[in-house]
């Protein structure tokens, strides 16, 4: 399982501060941070610890089995962000 971030994310970085496995991106200072409309959780790295859910001031983070219908796109979107990212990193190398 994984957690996912919905489009109501305000890019407050409280979740990044508490994530024990650094699976939330882009991080402040990263090249794509300023243009990112929200933060995303890497489903391949997330350990379902719940820390980000507690930290989020706008309740924008959900477990994958409990994503509200209005945010049903979020699971694919979070995964896709990392799929594209790794492609970009591979092509950049």
């Amino acid at each position: 399982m994984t957690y996912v971030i919905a489009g109501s994310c305000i890019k407050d970085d409280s979740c990044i501060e508490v994530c024990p496995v650094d699976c939330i991106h882009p991080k402040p200072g990263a090249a794509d941070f300023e243009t990112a409309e929200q933060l995303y959780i890497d489903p391949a790295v997330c350990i379902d610890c719940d820390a980000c859910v507690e930290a989020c001031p706008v309740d924008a983070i959900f477990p994958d089995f409990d994503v509200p219908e209005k945010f049903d796109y979020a699971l694919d979107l979070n995964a896709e962000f990392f799929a594209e990212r790794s492609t970009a990193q591979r092509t950049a190398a």
Partner: protein
Amino acid sequence: MPGRHPRVAIVGAGPAGAFAAASLLRARGQVEIDLFERLPTPWGLLRGGVAPDHQEIKRLEDTFDRQTLRRGCRLLANVEVGVDVSHIELMRHYDAVIYATGAQTDKSLGILGEDLPGSAPATEFVAWYNGHPDYHHLDFDLDTPRAVVVGNGNVAADVTRILASSPAELERTDIAEHALEALRASRIEEVLVLGRRGPAQAAFTSAELRDLGRLEGVDLRVDPSEIELDPVSRAWLAEEGTFTARKNVELLREFADRPPRLDAGRRIVLRFLRSPVEIRGEGRVQALEVRRNDIVRDESGALRARPAGDDVETIECGLVLRSVGYQAVPLPDVPFDERRFVLRNERGRVLDAEGRALPGVYAVGWIKRGPTGILGTNKRDAAETVACLVEDLRADALPEPEGVREELDALLAERKSNLVTVEGWRAIDAHERERGRAAERPRVKLASHDELLARAAR
């Protein structure tokens, strides 16, 4: 002065001011913070800007409250710095003053007819539906089949959604009562959204764009010819396009492929590469004239819209809302950068015309960096400004204030019989939430200065 805690005034209790107060309290617990606010209520655009159907974002007010007012930061609301109390008076009473006044006006289109009744900045429409007390008396004529929204940013998306949503959806939010009443009587069938540049350059977040396609009872129409990418945009999207830009183009293609929903009561139409050239009408808005643009790459590498020929298309409409950006206004006695519309600053330290730091004067938020970024951007922006302030306090680099807190309090009491403190705000907040509970809504706002001040004084 040994044993004395530093005193800091923050001017503007919007997100930037709130994040600055929270950041300062975290960095340095022993500090006296006064949060000045022009309106009787705190939290700025979180209350008066964020759309009422985005209630989840409004939860941030609980965090602001917990991290500022509940940690001893004082609220001095219904006080306008520059009018009720001057910058010079603040400097006399505080070690530091942080300006967090935002960007309070809108940019204009600079075209004929912009001042006709029926043409307004989207920011005024937003303030009106959000119950901002300066705008509750406005009257938007919704007795027209077509409204045009000029702009492709998130404010444009917000006003489009509010104009197209069914009143039944909005009734569950904290939208202002006067707006709900007007929207119930709305005759608008179509909201046409015009982008100056193309689909790849639209400034909507993909979340906002996706929402436009998911409104109950609303058909979203995008003609496939509107979203064909020109070669310049196609190359840009493939090589430099952001994740959001690619998502937006993908969503627009999905929308263009949808069959029309003939049962829908309203429609949203998205069109691109169009610039308004004139608003026409006798006594009020009756039509908007637009011209086509091309996308070109300028010397700096940025993609710009350029007029493509002289052909003008006339679009009949009764309401034009322009949403082409916010703009800051100068503050009395504080040096203002008239070209960039910000307080000239270095990492938040305000500079004079010669580029020297003004000791004890700081800026945060839109008045510091211009109207860009989203709510959370202010958190990092505030951390940067506060780091400078803390550094200056440590280095003992700030002039000692002459006056004590009691003197400033006496001065304010004398000038503002209706000053709103945290108790007054709590009374407003509790009353609004109580009214909301009765109506099964998050809150029912008090939308005039008189009502707000009367409740705060009880």
